[in-house]
């Protein structure tokens, strides 16, 4: 692997508090040197990247993706999903466990990380919180952590039973892992395919009430408070309702170790985007009301939200080309997240660029304790995204690197064009 010298760019590394013109030398998969412009001498064999006018930022971290391997390679593979990630500026992905079979063993956890998978960027497995996703018996978190697990979650399904959730929180706390909850009281959402409200009524679809999310989050926060001596880390996946966000806000005021992620579709879209049964606007949790969407924006701008996560959930075209109620939940997101966050959070809503990048790199890396990720400090992994922060472009789903095309953002104007994505010193994407 050749060393890489990146010069002329604006280094933006929120974790290190850097926002300045700097040159970087990447060597042996690590950040070797950082210096003022023109001060670094490139080794003879180095590749030299001219980053003039571009931002050089830590490779982005997405702690919520579905890579569909093992078992559902017709939707996505680790190779295709990570190629899409690289195109979107991501260098670290935490992959959910709802594969087939469910990832609840050290064997599958290791299999996912094996070089044979052809990953273009680093994949960190999240393992099932309960055996077989059944919500009954918790897994051996210590063994799973040793195999490379970075968190536990039954994402796709909630951990419903109080006792099981309490046990999961305590056991995960003992080994230093977060419990990521898919907060949906499935007893209230059976047969539902979108958010409850006037739009669902008009379309004649059963609606999921926002309480189905908020009541689980509230229950979980009570358990976290009861177990606070163990300092369990509770993370709410894809939070989507104002009520759940209010509960998270309060829990943090109370000093509990509670975090949350918001997906771009939940801070940009509402249930009105389902329009005439667009299955590319169907996911779980569903697109919510404008009030909920506004609460997501407010919480992101206020700093209550810890990170942006895509919930990248690829599905084959034929699976989505069906009656709305029969379509599977989920949309792709890896190639649109940065473009949407830069356009809306930064350009439209004036969040400083460093904070946007922090929400997509340093903060998610810190949540899952991904050492040496989400920063470009000397000695950290040479995970890097170089992008033009102002370039406008139009996302075309047909050109996606993902195996699937199920996105509501086809044809949307994006901001911030990725030029290079470097994963551990290797160019994973170039444009």
């Amino acid at each position, binding site marked *: 692997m050749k060393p890489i010298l990146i010069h002329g760019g604006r280094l933006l590394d929120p974790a290190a508090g850097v926002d300045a013109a700097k040159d970087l030398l990447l060597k042996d998969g690590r950040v070797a040197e950082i210096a003022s412009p023109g001060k670094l001498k490139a080794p003879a064999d180095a590749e030299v990247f001219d980053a003039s006018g571009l931002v050089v930022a830590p490779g982005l971290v997405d702690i919520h993706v579905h890579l569909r391997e093992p078992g559902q390679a017709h939707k996505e593979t680790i190779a295709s999903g990570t190629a899409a990630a690289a195109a979107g500026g991501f260098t670290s992905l935490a992959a959910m466990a709802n594969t087939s079979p469910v990832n609840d063993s050290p064997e599958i956890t290791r299999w996912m990380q094996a070089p044979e998978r052809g990953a273009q960027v680093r994949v960190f497995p999240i393992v099932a919180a309960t055996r077989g996703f059944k919500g009954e018996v918790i897994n051996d978190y210590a063994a799973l952590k040793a195999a490379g697990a970075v968190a536990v979650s039954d994402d796709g399904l909630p951990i419903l039973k109080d006792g099981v959730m309490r046990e999961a929180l305590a056991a995960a706390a003992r080994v230093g892992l977060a419990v990521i909850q898919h907060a949906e009281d499935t007893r209230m959402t059976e047969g539902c395919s979108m958010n409850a409200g006037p739009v669902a009524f008009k379309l*004649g679809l059963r609606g999921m009430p926002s309480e189905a999310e908020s009541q689980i989050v509230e229950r979980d926060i009570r358990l976290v408070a009861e177990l606070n001596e163990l300092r369990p880390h509770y993370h709410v996946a894809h939070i989507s309702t104002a009520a759940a966000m209010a509960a998270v806000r309060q829990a943090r005021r109370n000093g509990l170790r509670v975090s949350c992620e918001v997906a771009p579709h939940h801070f940009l*879209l509402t249930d009105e985007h389902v329009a005439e049964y667009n299955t590319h606007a169907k996911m779980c949790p569903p697109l919510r009301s404008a009030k909920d969407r506004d609460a997501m924006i407010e919480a992101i701008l206020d700093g209550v939200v810890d990170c942006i996560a895509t919930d990248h959930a690829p599905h084959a075209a034929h699976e989505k080309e069906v009656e709305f109620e029969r379509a599977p939940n989920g949309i792709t997101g890896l190639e649109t997240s940065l473009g949407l966050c830069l356009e809306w959070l930064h350009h439209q809503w004036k969040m400083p660029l460093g904070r946007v990048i922090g929400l997509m790199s340093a903060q998610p890396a810190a949540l899952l304790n991904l050492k040496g990720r989400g920063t470009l400090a000397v000695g950290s992994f040479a995970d890097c995204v170089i992008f033009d922060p102002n370039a406008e472009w139009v996302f075309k789903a047909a050109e996606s690197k993902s195996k699937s095309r199920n996105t509501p953002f086809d044809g949307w104007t994006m901001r911030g064009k990725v030029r290079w994505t470097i994963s551990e010193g290797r160019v994973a994407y170039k444009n």
Partner: protein
Amino acid sequence: MAMPASSTARPRLRTPSAPQPPFPHHPGSAISIGHFSLAEITRLLRRAHLLNNEDPIERSKRLAKRRVALLFYEASTRTRTSFELAAKSLGMDTTLVSNLSSSIEKGESLKDTGLTLRALGAEAIILRHNASGAPYVLEQFTDLPVLNAGDGRHEHPSQALLDLLTMLAHLSPAHASGEAALTAESLKGVTVSIVGDILHSRVARSNLLLLPQLGAEVVLSGPPELLPEDAALIAPNVGVERNFELALQRSQVVMLLRIQSERLAGLNVDLDEYKTRYQLDERRLARLAPEAIVLHPGPIIRGLELTAAVADGPQSKILEQVHNGVRIRMALIERAFAALDAQGKGANQ
């Protein structure tokens, strides 16, 4: 995890706008009543009137040997027969595909079933489906005009049109024949109450979207389990009145709906209590709405939402509705094929 800054009032932020109608549809399709302008509905009523009065032999030459498929995923007596008779009256070849005697049972998707029917020569498809929104899927992948004969809990536009025709025949005959153009005031001063299982009713939704466009006031009545407050939010001039007698008292038209027992799973509805509060019986009708007409999309369950005496009584126009259905559906089929021919995608292609 940083502590949040206290939230202060922010100026309203610009957010991405949701897709707005009109969405692209085949000009011959009839999926949602919301897609029809008042001018189009006037034209349909006029064509329905003329086709109904036309010599049957002449009429049967209009679409002679053209092909329409009836694709039915749910049981139906009235709607299916009505569409079929309408098509045959226009001289068409019809074929019926039902989920119980076709490859649908073997797991064929709606898209593939639609493409198969198109390859067999169907130029338009009349669809009854148990999933809301299914006609959009069929239209999208076949690019044929799709006539919605009822989809899930979503809509039943031909029913709303025949309901309208029945109402107009009693309230404003010139409008019923399409002689006078419909306007936003054609039903001004008219209150229509829709009573019962609004939640599960595609007929209610289509009527809710149509009647206020003509100036009518719509009053919904039923218990909360069957009538969520959200119902009143989908169109203007729609209100909820839980007290059936108060709703009845204001109404020139009472539209009753069947309790869809097959969809009641998990809902806590006491049928005896329902009858006490919402059943339309002779006494209530005579006392509170002696001039009103009574409509029902069928099938009626005598002794539940209405008594036999009301169903068979002089104010009941239920069979008139059924009768009016055929001419409305002739007009809808004619419209679909006119659109096809205008596109140059007719039988000769």
